[in-house]
């Protein structure tokens, strides 16, 4: 299989000019401004309550990404992936694997301590990863060596470890997790009631193995409404905000800095599982009725893109092979079928919108409208947060949202399948490569029409004008250790007795 890293590297080789130009631009920027230490970075997020404990996160949920943003400030992973598709050593300085990609051995970085003073070791890494590893994979350690043994071949082990919840932390047993990251969580004020924001304060970790971050402190306010976040950014009361898609155009009209990730959020439909021909035709009819272009272009004001596949192009590499154009011949055939007409005229089907937010409701309304235009009576049912991503009940369609958080396409698809409880419909492997198998698996899933993707939505971040070196990953991971604030109040020199970040690197 071609990993995501190799694909990105290949892409870069195909465009050396662009890389060179980017390097020139970066040098020019560095020449003009040097990073400064100090300052408080104020971040405002949508999700109301954050948890830095990776063991509590639910894959695919929007809050997973918010939690990951917080955790990335506190913890480190074994490896990381840069914009060029290269795996960079983090807490692991060396790694190797057997030819079957089942046994992976990592040599950990020496001299690293957690924020509570305990030293990083293989045992600590093993203890952190053990509850996070998927079934069929186990961890063992020896000294500063960590071994991960997978039951199946895991060629995408590094992609997995560089993303998701595979953070290395030290659990002292008092409910507080210590990390090796650039910041230390010093204060967390969780909202006890709905609608109230939560507050988190992180101080710079002066003893960070990678050097002290430029920022003195990061203050995160979570659970603010979209418009409030935007207004705070406009008024200078916030430096980094999660920007709602419907406000992106306004932010840009007001000359605010908007950073856009690759599509990281999928809105889709989970269609009922009935095996009969009637059910299959109904699923097909609903799928063919979906007007994804209008959803992305009008309802989301071109801030999203129609989704023909479950996995985005940047993750799978083959999404462009799927077409979003409806099969007109098949649609005409379906509309002329008396059985479909009778089914559609019967009891209304329920469309349950479990995904939070106005956007999901808007898409649900549009799906119902599209279906009704095709003669299918689809009625929107009430929201049920507790059944997030539960399988659709008989004769019930559910609109789900999935936030991509893994850099491994097979793992992401497997997680999505597991959450949607859609069976593995991959064709027999044979001699095909893993990418082809993944493609075939997703194609079969889409052809079964139990899952219908709608739109893919990137992550929009609004930035204040004085934040510098904002260099997040294209899939949405933030790197605030390298960011700094270009304000008169901050200093160009690091605090005394503290190694500078540039010196350590």
């Amino acid at each position, binding site marked *: 299989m071609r990993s995501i890293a190799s694909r990105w590297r290949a892409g870069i080789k195909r465009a050396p000019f662009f890389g060179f130009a980017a390097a020139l631009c970066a040098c020019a920027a560095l020449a003009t401004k040097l990073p400064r230490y100090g300052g408080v970075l104020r971040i405002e997020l949508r999700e109301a309550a954050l948890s830095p404990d990776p063991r509590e996160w639910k894959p695919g949920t929007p809050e997973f990404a918010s939690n990951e943003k917080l955790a990335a400030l506190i913890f480190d992973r074994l490896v990381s992936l840069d914009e060029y598709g290269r795996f960079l050593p983090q807490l692991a300085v060396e790694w190797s694997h057997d030819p079957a990609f089942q046994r992976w051995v990592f040599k950990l970085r020496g001299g690293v301590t957690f924020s509570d003073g305990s030293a990083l070791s293989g045992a600590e890494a093993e203890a952190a990863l053990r509850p996070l590893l998927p079934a069929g994979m186990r961890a063992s350690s020896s000294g500063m060596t960590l071994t991960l043994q997978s039951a199946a071949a895991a060629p995408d082990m590094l992609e997995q470890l560089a993303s998701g919840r595979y953070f290395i932390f030290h659990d002292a047993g008092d409910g507080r997790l210590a990390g090796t990251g650039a910041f230390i969580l010093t204060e967390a004020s969780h909202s006890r009631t709905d609608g109230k924001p939560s507050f988190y304060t992180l101080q710079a970790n002066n003893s960070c193995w990678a050097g002290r971050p430029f920022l003195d402190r990061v203050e995160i306010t979570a659970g603010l409404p979209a418009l409030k976040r935007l207004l705070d950014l406009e008024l200078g009361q916030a430096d980094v905000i999660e920007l709602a898609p*419907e406000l992106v*155009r306004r932010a840009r009209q007001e000359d605010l800095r908007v950073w856009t990730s690759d599509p990281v959020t999928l809105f889709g439909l989970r269609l009922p599982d009935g095996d009969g021909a009637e059910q299959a035709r109904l699923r097909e009819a609903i799928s063919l009725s979906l*007007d994804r272009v*209008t959803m992305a*272009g*009008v*309802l989301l*004001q*071109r801030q999203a893109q129609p989704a023909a596949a479950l996995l985005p192009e940047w993750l799978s590499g083959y999404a462009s092979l799927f077409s979003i154009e409806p099969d007109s011949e098949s649609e005409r055939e379906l509309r002329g079928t008396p059985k479909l007409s009778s089914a559609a005229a019967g009891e209304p089907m329920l469309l349950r919108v479990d995904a939070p937010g106005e956007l999901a*409701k*808007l*898409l*649900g*309304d*549009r799906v*119902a*409208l599209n279906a009704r235009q095709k003669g299918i009576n689809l009625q*929107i049912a009430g929201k049920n947060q507790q059944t997030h991503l539960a399988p659709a009940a008989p004769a019930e369609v559910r609109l789900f949202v999935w936030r991509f958080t893994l850099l491994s396409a097979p793992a992401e698809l497997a997680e999505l399948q597991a959450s949607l409880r859609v069976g593995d419909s991959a064709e027999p492997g044979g001699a095909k490569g893993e990418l082809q198998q993944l493609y075939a698996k997703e194609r079969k899933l889409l052809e079964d029409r139990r899952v219908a993707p709608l739109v893919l939505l990137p992550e929009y971040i609004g930035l204040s004008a004085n934040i510098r070196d904002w260099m997040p990953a294209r899939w949405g991971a933030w790197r605030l250790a390298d960011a700094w604030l270009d304000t008169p109040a901050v200093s160009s020199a690091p605090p005394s007795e503290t190694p500078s970040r540039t010196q350590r690197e």
Partner: protein
Amino acid sequence: MTFRTKLLLTVLLTILASVSVVAYGVTYYTKAAFEEMDGERTEALVSQFKKEYAQRGEEVVQQVKNIADSSVTLRMAIDLARPNADASIYFNDAKGTAQDHNLDFMQFVGSDGTLVSSLQYPARVGYKVDWLAQKKDWDNSPPFLKKEELPEGVELSLTVVRTLSGGNDKTLYVVGGRRLDQNFLSSLVLPSGMRALLYRNLEPGFIPSALTDASGNLPQADRFQPLIEQIQKQPHAMVRRIDWTMDAADAETFHEIPLMGPNNELLAVLLVGSSQRELVLLTRKIVRISAAVAGAALLIGLLMSLWISARITKPVEELAEGAREVATGRWDTRIDVRGTDEIGQLATAFNDMTRTLAAQKERLLQTERVAAWRELARRLAHELRNPLFPLQITVENLQRARQLEAKQFLEVFHESTATLKAELANLNTIVGRFSDFSKMPAPQFSRVNVNEALRNAVKLFEPQFTAVGKPTITTEFFLTEPLPEIDADPDLLHRAFQNLVLNALDAMPAGGTLTLRSAESKGGVRIEVSDTGKGLTPEECSRLFTPYYTTKQQGTGLGLAIVQSVVSDHHGNISVTSDEDRGTTFRIELPQRQAQRSSPPASDTPSPNTRPPLSTLAAASD
């Protein structure tokens, strides 16, 4: 029922009727006045609603016009009029515009009818809005009621459409509206006891949840089903009443006002409810007051009636009492005369009448007494003259015979003494009969078979019935057998029957038929003795039982008097009926049982002056 009671009831009924009429009139006209007032109040509310409705429409018109006239909207129209314009950038404009102008519904629709932006149904953006093309001149159109489709259902909107041109013959439609729901109802200022309900007629038939009031919570909504269904069939204003409970105070009167859509379809019904509680309670209060007043009036009337009727009827009662006393023979009864009114005059006349009657009675008694003495004297003279004459002749013969020889004188003497003896005996007999009548014995009651007594009485005279040389008299018995025995003195009864039979024989000198009948009557027996003689005149019948009255040459006039005396002593009565030339019938009715078996104290000397018993009087009058 006494006169006083009648008078009392009459007065009471009159008072009751008067009070009832007055109370009913007061209640009726008061209720009518209240109902009229309630109707005017409801009409005022309905009028207020119409004004509110029109005012809301004007507000929507103004707001939509302001939106259409704004530079932002004009820029939108111009931008959308350009070729290949990106309409998606206006996706959220409806929301902000509606918030700025306080509208519940807001839509921007492109020139081709494509929805550009929608507040109420953003997901519809991109779809066609067909109804806008059905009309050209929207700018002068008034607000209208419209079904507004929303993701969650259908709402009612007071909608206004305005247009503006963006150039290139492209028009932008601005569609704004306000929701017609419970908030609209809550904005209506209602007087106490009234409420406004809104039924949104968005689906056929009656849907209870479509009916709401200002609070949004309407219990017993299904009670409105007949009202709504009726107005769905005939959409015009009407008034209906709903009795929520058995208590009339819980009833409500609803004025139903249909709210029509642009195509004259019924989209909503406004129900203005007016509670009847205040009206009913007020009416009840008036009724209670009326009842109390009526009761008090009746009580006072009753007391007044008692006093008045007592005052009015007392002289009348005294008159009646006096009349009763007069009826019992107290001819000297007098009543007090009070006043000079009709009652006083009546009392005076009554006193005069009783005084006159007493005087006349006294005169009548004196006359009868004189007549009786005269009759007695006549009878005595008659009875005594017959034997006296022979005595006188005999004595004269004896005087003349003194001159005869001794032998002849002796013969004459013997003959004369014999005659004297006979005549003296005759005189003795006459005197004895009078004596017997005056000494009627007291009856000694015992069980007596009346039929047997009748047969025994007739048997004594049977030889005379068939005596040679005398006309034959036939006897006929019609006796009921068995006849109950009665308490009677058998000797007196026999004597009475004997007198009756003898009277009948005397009445039939030329022969005839003697008929005797007996039968059981109510509580006694009835005996009839009939002859076929020449009969009696009514005057004779009326005097027949008077002592010493007789129609016969040889009678003493005591026989029927004795019969009457016996019947009277047996507490019975006797009557006589007679048809001239056809005969006479005596009818005796005797009670079966006497109150006491011992005889009543007999009057030593029954005087003709004494008043006979009532029964005898009644019989005599017959």
